[in-house]
C-alpha cells in the first residue's frame, strides 16, 4: 500500500466498504504515514459532521399543501385512451343523449373530493403500463432481496 492507493481508497475505508484485507492494509499504512493518517482524520471528520446534521423541518403548512396537491392530482388525471374516430362519434352521441336525459332528471351529484377524503386512484388505473415513475429513465431490474 502506497500513499496514492491509500488516498484513492480513504473514502471507502471510512465507509467500511473495503474488503477485510484492504481494511487491514489501510490501517497499517496510516500507522506509518502521518500524512495519510491526517487525510483519514479529515475524511472521518467530514463524514461524522454530515451524519450529525440537523434534519431540516418543512414549514408548518407544507403537510397540508402536499396532501392537497396529491389529492387534486387524483381528481385531474384522465385515463389514457387510444383515439378512435368511430368511438369518439359514439361517445358524442351517448353524451348528447345523457345531456337530454340529465335535463329531464334531477341528478344528485357528489361534490368535488373533500379535503378529508382519501385519494381516489380510479382515474390513474388507466395509465398503468404507459409510463414509468422515473420520468423516462428506463426501469432497471435489480437482483432480488434488496434494498
Amino acid at each position, binding site marked *: 500500500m502506497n500513499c496514492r492507493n491509500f488516498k*484513492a481508497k480513504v*473514502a*471507502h475505508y471510512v*465507509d467500511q*466498504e473495503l474488503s477485510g484485507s484492504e481494511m487491514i492494509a489501510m490501517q497499517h499504512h496510516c500507522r506509518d504515514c*502521518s500524512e495519510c*493518517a*491526517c487525510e483519514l*482524520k*479529515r*475524511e472521518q*471528520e*467530514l*463524514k461524522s*459532521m*454530515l*451524519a450529525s*446534521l*440537523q*434534519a*431540516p*423541518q*418543512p*414549514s408548518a403548512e*407544507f*403537510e397540508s*399543501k*402536499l*396532501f392537497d*396537491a*396529491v389529492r387534486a*392530482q*387524483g381528481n385531474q*388525471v384522465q385515463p389514457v385512451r387510444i383515439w378512435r374516430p368511430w368511438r369518439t362519434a359514439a361517445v358524442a352521441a351517448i353524451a348528447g343523449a345523457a345531456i337530454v336525459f340529465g335535463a329531464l332528471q334531477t341528478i344528485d351529484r357528489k361534490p368535488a373530493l373533500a379535503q378529508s377524503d*382519501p*385519494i*381516489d*386512484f380510479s382515474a*390513474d*388505473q388507466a*395509465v*398503468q403500463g404507459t*409510463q*414509468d*415513475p*422515473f*420520468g*423516462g*429513465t428506463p*426501469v*432497471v*431490474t*435489480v*437482483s*432480488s432481496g*434488496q*434494498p
Partner: protein
Amino acid sequence: MQSLFANPTQTQRPDPAAFERYMRDSHRQVYGLAMRLTGQSSDAEDLVQEAYIRAFRFFFRYDPSLPFTSWMYRILTNIHIDHNRRKGRVKASSLDHAGSDGETAWEVADESSSPDKLVMEGELDDALQLGLMAMCPEFRMAVVLADVEGMAYEEIADVMQTSIGTVRSRIHRGRKQMRRYLEREFPERFREVARELP
C-alpha cells in the same frame, strides 16, 4: 432477476388510504433528503410534491415488502436528476468532472453555493450545506445518501439506479470536491483537523 416493483395484476386495486398513511409517515424524511439535495426550502417542497404525485400515480407498482422511503428516494432522485438535466447544466464530459467510468457529471453551477450569501463561520450546518451544494449533483446525491442517510453503497446503487462502482467513484470524488471547497472557504474550521496532527 426481479424488478424492484411489484407486478400486480390488472384487477389489483391499490388502497387509497394506504398511500396517505405512507405519505404521512415518510414525507418529513423525504423532505429532509430533498432539502439536502436542493439547498432551498421552496425547491425542496416542489421536489417532494412532484415526487409524491408521481408515486401516487404509480402506487400500484410499489411492492410493500420493500421500504416505502427507499421507493420514494428513488423517485425523488430521478426527478431531481431530470430537473438538473433540463436546466441545461449537463455538460459533455470535461477533463475535470468526467469519471474514469465515463459518466457525465455537471459543472458546479449552483448559485446558492456562494459563501458570502448568508453563512457566517460558526454556523456549521450552513457551511456544510454550502459544501454539499459545491458538489456536482450526482456526487452530492451519493454523498448525502451515504453520510447523511447512512446508507450502504449497495442501497445507494439501488436508489440511484447505477452500479456500485459508479457509487464508489461518486462518493470519492464528491467528498474530495466538498473538502476542497470547505478548506478553501472556511479554513479556520476545516483545516484545524490537519493542524492538530504532528
